[in-house]
């Protein structure tokens, strides 16, 4: 199972505990999380389902490349960290 962790600063606005989900891409993993936490979607993705401008996602320590389609590959042992980019202040 893929481990998905969200920045603790999100807790100020809504509950988003760490999740273990399945998936082969970042998109699939996030969609699995949104199935149970639909409100979280709008905090991470914009109107066109792209990663928000000032958010950043790390997979196993590397920032993802595809911020539009979130097609970066993941393995069952991957750890995904959804964080704030400091460009957003």
């Amino acid at each position, binding site marked *: 199972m893929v481990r998905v962790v969200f920045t603790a600063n999100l807790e100020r606005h809504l509950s988003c505990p760490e999740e273990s989900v399945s998936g082969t891409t970042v998109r699939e993993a996030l969609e699995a999380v949104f199935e149970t936490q639909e409100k979280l979607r*709008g*905090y991470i993705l914009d*109107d066109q389902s792209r990663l*928000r401008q000032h958010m950043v996602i790390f997979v196993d320590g590397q920032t993802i490349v595809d911020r539009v389609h979130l097609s970066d590959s993941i393995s069952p042992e991957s750890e995904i960290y959804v964080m704030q980019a400091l460009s957003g202040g």
Partner: protein
Amino acid sequence: MSSQVQIATRKGLFQLERNSDSWKIRRHDFPGENVSMVLHDSRDNTTYAALNHGHFGVKLHRSSDAGQNWEECAVPVYPEGAKKAPDPFTENAEPKPASLSEIWSLEPGGIDQPNRLWCGTIPGGLFRSDDRGSSWQLVDSLWDLPERLKWFGGGKDDPGIHSICVHPQNSRNIAVAISCGGVWVTEDDGTSWTCKADGLRAEYMPPDLAHDPNIQDAHRMVQSPTQPDHFWIQHHNGVFKTTDGAQSWQEVTGIQPSVFGFAVAVHPQRPETAWFVPGVKDECRIPVEGRFVIARTTDGGVTSEVLSNGLPGEHSYDIVYRHALDIDETGDCLAVGSTTGNFWITEDGGDSWQTVSTSLPPIYCVRFVKS
């Protein structure tokens, strides 16, 4: 006279109350959060607060008990595939996907539309809700106009709808003003739209485009609630008014000490009386000679008085954003909040002002709670 006022700021929403003869801060909600807009809907006593999180996007919250409890409701969402206009300053630029970047205006529908809200956004979409903000629909009839692709940002990267005027006697008649996209009017509840900006003038365009109605930068537009054919516009390079329902606009030149500014308020019963907050000019956005003043005209802009009693007479660098000047239903009480967190109120139409706070965060929107 109003006894409550709401202030949206860079660091939260403040609610103030009048007690005996002074105004005090009663509540501070969303501390530290960027609140771009506030609306108190007197039809059902709901307050709406639009938040703009730097990282997590735009959110909308509502409260039915004066702020004791808030619930997050829906925000306008641009439909899949919606595109912004191509960047006019980049050759062969591809249109970029549209996504909500700011709730810039929020207004109730008419009294015959109890759950209706209108929302003006950046990047230029007008949205409608018929369930108190639980869901929103993009007004396609305005978004799909080919003229929309000629709009451009004024002070923001993208165009935005900052003023929504719902006709007080006919709620199907709505006028919106856009930076920079002129004034658009519907008379059929948003089914069709007509640009009604003839007479506005843009100094920032080449001479042959200066009177193009579709590129005018109205900073703020207000409508007389009792004589709704009368509107005022504080424009990027001047002050304009119409007395024929926006069929034609006339430039007025009597506003002192400057015709540059963002905000305008119109007297609720006397449409020829209006207030402005002048700055030097677009390239120097500070009060003229460091004196923070309010301008008031009572003759439709032919002449004006400079109101300064109680306002900073020197070393003021306050600018008042377009939504940060409001007037109550009597026309006596006005409130004004500045970019440097100063907040003043007058209870005599501007003849004298009292300083309520000098230490608020940058102020985006000031609104009296009206009955």
